[in-house]
């Protein structure tokens, strides 16, 4: 599997691979976008942090309410003004909101995790 697979997700502007801590390992960016490696690195850190927080919240929510179906988490997405970052595991893809297919993005990321 490579980042090329993630770049095939509808509306993909960038694909990136990061460590467990959120450090950027590799990335691909579609020509003409304003996404720099530095932005992607910080974005990866943000997503790692938010996935950790979401795991805490999901676990707490399930314990408090008795509702199930949240854990284990299958991913997280940050929806910005023009684009969304969709991440799971150690991979992420940035998709243009106008063309975003969130389910396709989560499905593509699940392939990397499998």
């Amino acid at each position, binding site marked *: 599997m490579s980042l090329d697979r993630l770049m095939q997700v509808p509306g993909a502007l960038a694909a990136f691979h990061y460590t467990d801590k959120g450090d950027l390992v590799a990335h691909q960016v579609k020509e003409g976008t*304003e*996404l*720099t490696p*530095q*932005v992607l690195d*910080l*974005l990866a850190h*943000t997503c790692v*942090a*938010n996935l950790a*927080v*979401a795991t805490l*919240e*999901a676990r707490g*929510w399930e314990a*408090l*309410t008795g*509702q*199930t*179906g*949240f*854990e*284990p*988490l*299958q*991913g*997280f*997405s*940050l*929806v*910005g*003004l*023009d*684009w969304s970052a*969709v991440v*799971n595991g150690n991979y992420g893809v940035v998709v243009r*909101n106008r063309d*975003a*297919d*969130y*389910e396709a993005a*989560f499905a593509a990321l699940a392939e990397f995790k499998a």
Partner: protein
Amino acid sequence: MRIITQLMQIPGVIAAGEYAYRGDRYSYEGNISSEQARMASILCRANTLSMNMQVELFSSFAPEDCGCKPLQGWIVRGRDMSVCVVGNIFCFCQNTPGLLNDVMTIMRAKVGDIEENPLVYMYAKIGGDVHEKLY
């Protein structure tokens, strides 16, 4: 029609609600208790504000406007359920195929960045002459 009511009409949506950015007011519909809706409102507000700050921070590293701010919302994808938040609206939905995209389209149309008719937007994904298909 209220966006919460509109969301609740989609099969697979479990609950939807609206929270205040300030204070503890909220309203909701769906299959959760009032206490759960209160907790969900607090959780969603806290996460949204935190992410707003994060987006402000990393966008300052972009050479120009990187297209991420202001934050519109976020999604947490669980094993069988997802939580979607756009603006001050939250929605708990099942991971039924196609549902997440529909929920996000409606939420972004109501409180996000989709300015045209959401039906036109949704049909545009299929391709072809949207106007002919719809009208």
